[in-house]
C-alpha cells in the first residue's frame, strides 16, 4: 500500500478514536435531555469537576486550601498521601451522586414547567458555578491525572503497519495512542452497559417511560424527581468517565470543560434524543474533523478543527432539521 493511503487510514483511525471521546460527552447530554428535556450545558464542567475531584482525592489535596490559607494565614496543602485509585474513583462517584441530588433539590425542583430556554440558562449558570467551585476547591493549576491506563504510541502497531507499506517507500508506521484505544473500549463497554440498564432493569424502564411522556409516567406512579436524581447521577458517572479519559489525555485543566462545546455539533448531528445518534454523530464529527485538518487545513492556514464540526452540523441540519436519529419534529397549532 502506498504511504499516502496508509496516512489516510491513520487519520481516519485517529478520527474515530477522537469521535468516541466526543460521543462520550455527548452521551451525558442525551441521557439528561431524554429524561427531563433539559439541555444540560454543564455536562463539560461536570466532567472537569469530576476529574478535579478525582485528582484531588488521589493525591490527597486539601479541599479549599487556597481559601483557608488566604483567610487564616495558614499553609495547608495536603491532608495525607492520597487514596488508591479505585477508592478515589468510588469516592468521586459518591461526590457526583451528592451533586446530582443537590442540583435536583436546589435548582431543578423550582424550575419544573419552565420554558426550555430558562432551563438551559439555569444549566449555564450551574456550569459557571461548578467551574468556580471546582477551582476554589482544588485550585486552578493544570494537574496530571494517572489512573494506570497505558499511554503513548503502540510500537507493535508501528511495526505491523510499516510492513504494509510498499517496499522501499519511506514509511515509519502509524501512530495511534494506546490511551485512545482504551478510551474507545471503555466507551463501548459503557454504551452497552447503559443500553442493558435501560432495557432490562425496572429503573431503566422507568427512565424510558419518563423520556416518552412525563405525565403518563407520573400517572403510573413513577416519581419524576427521583428519576431526575438518577439521571443526573448517571450522567455524572458518564462525566466522570469522560473526565478520566480527557484528563489522562491532556491533563486536568479548565479547557476540559470546553469539550462540551465539541459535543454540541455531535449532538445536533445525531439528534438530541438518540443514544446511537450520539455515537454515530461523534464518529462522523471525529473523522470529519481529522480529515479536514489533514487535507483542507494546510490550504487555509490550519486550525480548521475549531469550526469544521459546526459547519458540517449546520449544513447537515439544513437537510434534516431533527438530526440523524432525532424524533421527527411535528408542529401543530
Amino acid at each position: 500500500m502506498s504511504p499516502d493511503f496508509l496516512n489516510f487510514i491513520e487519520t481516519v483511525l485517529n478520527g474515530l478514536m477522537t469521535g468516541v471521546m466526543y460521543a462520550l460527552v455527548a452521551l451525558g447530554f442525551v441521557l439528561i435531555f431524554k429524561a427531563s428535556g433539559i439541555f444540560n450545558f454543564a455536562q463539560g464542567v461536570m466532567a472537569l469537576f469530576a476529574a478535579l475531584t478525582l485528582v484531588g482525592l488521589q493525591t490527597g489535596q486539601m479541599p479549599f486550601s487556597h481559601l483557608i490559607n488566604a483567610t487564616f494565614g495558614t499553609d495547608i496543602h495536603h491532608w495525607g498521601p492520597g487514596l488508591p485509585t479505585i477508592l478515589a474513583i468510588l469516592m468521586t462517584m459518591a461526590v457526583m451522586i451528592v451533586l446530582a441530588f443537590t442540583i435536583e433539590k436546589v435548582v431543578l425542583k423550582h424550575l419544573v414547567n419552565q420554558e426550555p430556554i430558562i432551563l438551559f440558562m439555569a444549566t449555564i449558570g450551574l456550569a459557571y458555578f461548578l467551574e468556580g467551585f471546582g477551582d476554589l476547591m482544588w485550585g486552578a493549576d493544570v494537574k496530571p491525572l494517572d489512573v494506570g491506563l497505558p499511554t503513548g504510541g503502540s510500537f507493535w502497531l508501528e511495526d505491523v503497519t510499516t510492513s504494509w507499506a510498499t517496499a522501499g517507500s519511506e514509511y515509519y508506521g502509524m501512530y495511534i495512542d494506546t490511551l485512545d484505544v482504551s478510551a474507545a473500549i471503555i466507551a463501548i463497554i459503557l454504551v452497552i452497559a447503559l443500553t442493558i440498564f435501560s432495557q432490562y432493569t425496572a429503573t431503566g424502564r422507568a427512565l424510558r417511560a419518563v423520556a416518552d411522556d412525563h405525565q403518563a409516567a407520573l400517572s403510573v406512579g413513577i416519581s419524576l424527581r427521583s428519576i431526575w436524581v438518577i439521571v443526573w447521577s448517571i450522567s455524572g458517572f458518564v462525566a466522570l468517565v469522560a473526565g478520566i479519559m480527557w484528563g489522562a489525555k491532556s491533563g486536568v485543566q479548565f479547557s476540559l470543560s470546553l469539550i462540551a462545546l465539541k459535543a454540541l455539533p455531535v449532538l445536533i448531528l445525531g439528534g438530541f434524543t438518540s443514544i446511537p445518534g450520539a455515537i454515530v454523530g461523534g464518529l462522523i464529527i471525529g473523522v470529519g474533523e481529522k480529515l479536514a485538518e489533514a487535507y483542507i487545513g494546510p490550504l487555509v492556514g490550519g486550525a480548521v478543527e475549531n469550526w469544521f464540526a459546526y459547519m458540517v452540523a449546520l449544513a447537515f441540519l439544513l437537510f434534516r432539521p431533527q438530526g440523524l436519529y432525532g424524533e421527527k419534529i411535528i408542529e401543530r397549532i
Partner: protein
Amino acid sequence: MLYRETGDFSSTYAADQQTFPIRSERYLFWTAMAFAFLVVPFLVNDYWEKSVLVPLLVWSMAALGLNILTGYCGQVSLGTGGFMAVGAYACYKLMTAFPEMNMFIVVVLSGGVTAFVGMLFGLPSLRIKGFYLAVATLAAQFFLVWIFNKVPWFYNNSASGQITAPERTIFGVAVTGASAPPWATYLFCLTLVFVFAWVARNLTRGQLGRSWMAIRDMDIAAEIIGVQPLKAKISAFAVSSFYIGVAGALYFSVWLGAAEPTEAFGIDKSFLVLFMVIIGGLGSILGSFLGAAFLTLMPVLLKNVMVGGMSWPTDLAAHIEIMLVGGLIVFFLIVEPHGLAQLWRLLKEKLRLWPFPY
C-alpha cells in the same frame, strides 16, 4: 411620591400610547437623562470611564441587539461574540481606510456590515429551530473568530495579529486612541446608545416588532395569519446584528483600543450577553439595560470588596466571582424567570397603590 398616577389623564390616543404614559415616570426618565448627559460628563474620570460607564454602555448596546433577536423574535443566538468581532473589524478597516471619516459614520457603517453578515448567518433559522438553531449559531461564532485570525487582510498584516484603534475624532475631539478624554468617549457612547435605544423601542412596537413577536409566540400560527417568516426572521437577524455590530465597534475602538479575536470575542462574550438579556428580561428594552448594568457592575463591586476590602489574592477572587455569577443566575431564574424588568413592573404596580393598597 415618585410614582403617581392620580390626576394624570390622557386625552388623546398619542398620549395614551407613548412610551412613558405616566407623568411622574416621564419626569423621572428625563431627569435621569439630563443627569447622564449634562452632569456625569463633568464628574467622570478615567477609572469610571474605562471600568464602569463605557463597559456598561457597550454591553447595553449588545444586550439590546440580542434582546431584539432572542427576546422579541424568539431566535436563540450564541454567536454574539462573533458578530461583535465583525463590527470591530469592520470598524478597524473603515478607520484605517478612511482616516478623515467622522467616527459616528464609521460606527454606523460597521453596524451595517455586521447586519449583512448577520443576515447570512440568519438564513438557517428559516429551517432550524430552538436549540438546534442555538448550536448552529455557534458555527458563526467559531468561524468568524477563526477567519479574523487567519486572513491577514482583516488586521492589515500587523505582525502581532492584533488590531489597534488609531486616534479618530468627532468635531475635532478625539474619541478613540489613548489621548481621548473620558468625557468625550462617554458622551459618544451615551449618544449612540440613547439614539438606538429610542429606535429599538419604536421598532419593537411598530409593525415590524409585532411581526417578530408573532413569530416568537408561535411561528406556524404567525405564518397562517400572514406574517412572512422569511421577512420577519431575517429582519430580526439584520437589526439585531446591526446593534451588536455597533456594540462591537465601540467595544474595540472606544473601550479596549486594541483587540485580539480569540481573547476579546470568545464564546464567553456570547454567553455574557445572553445572560444579560435573560437576567434583565426577555423582550424588554429596559431589561437589556438592567441586565447589562447588573452583570457589568456586580463583578466590579465584587472585585473591589474581595480584593480591596478583604485583601484576598486576585485568582481566588476570580473563582469566587464566577461562582457567584453562576449562583446568582440560577437564583434569578428561580425567583423571577422574567428578569429584572418584571421586578420593576411589579414594583410599579405596588407603587401605584402605595401606601393604601386594597
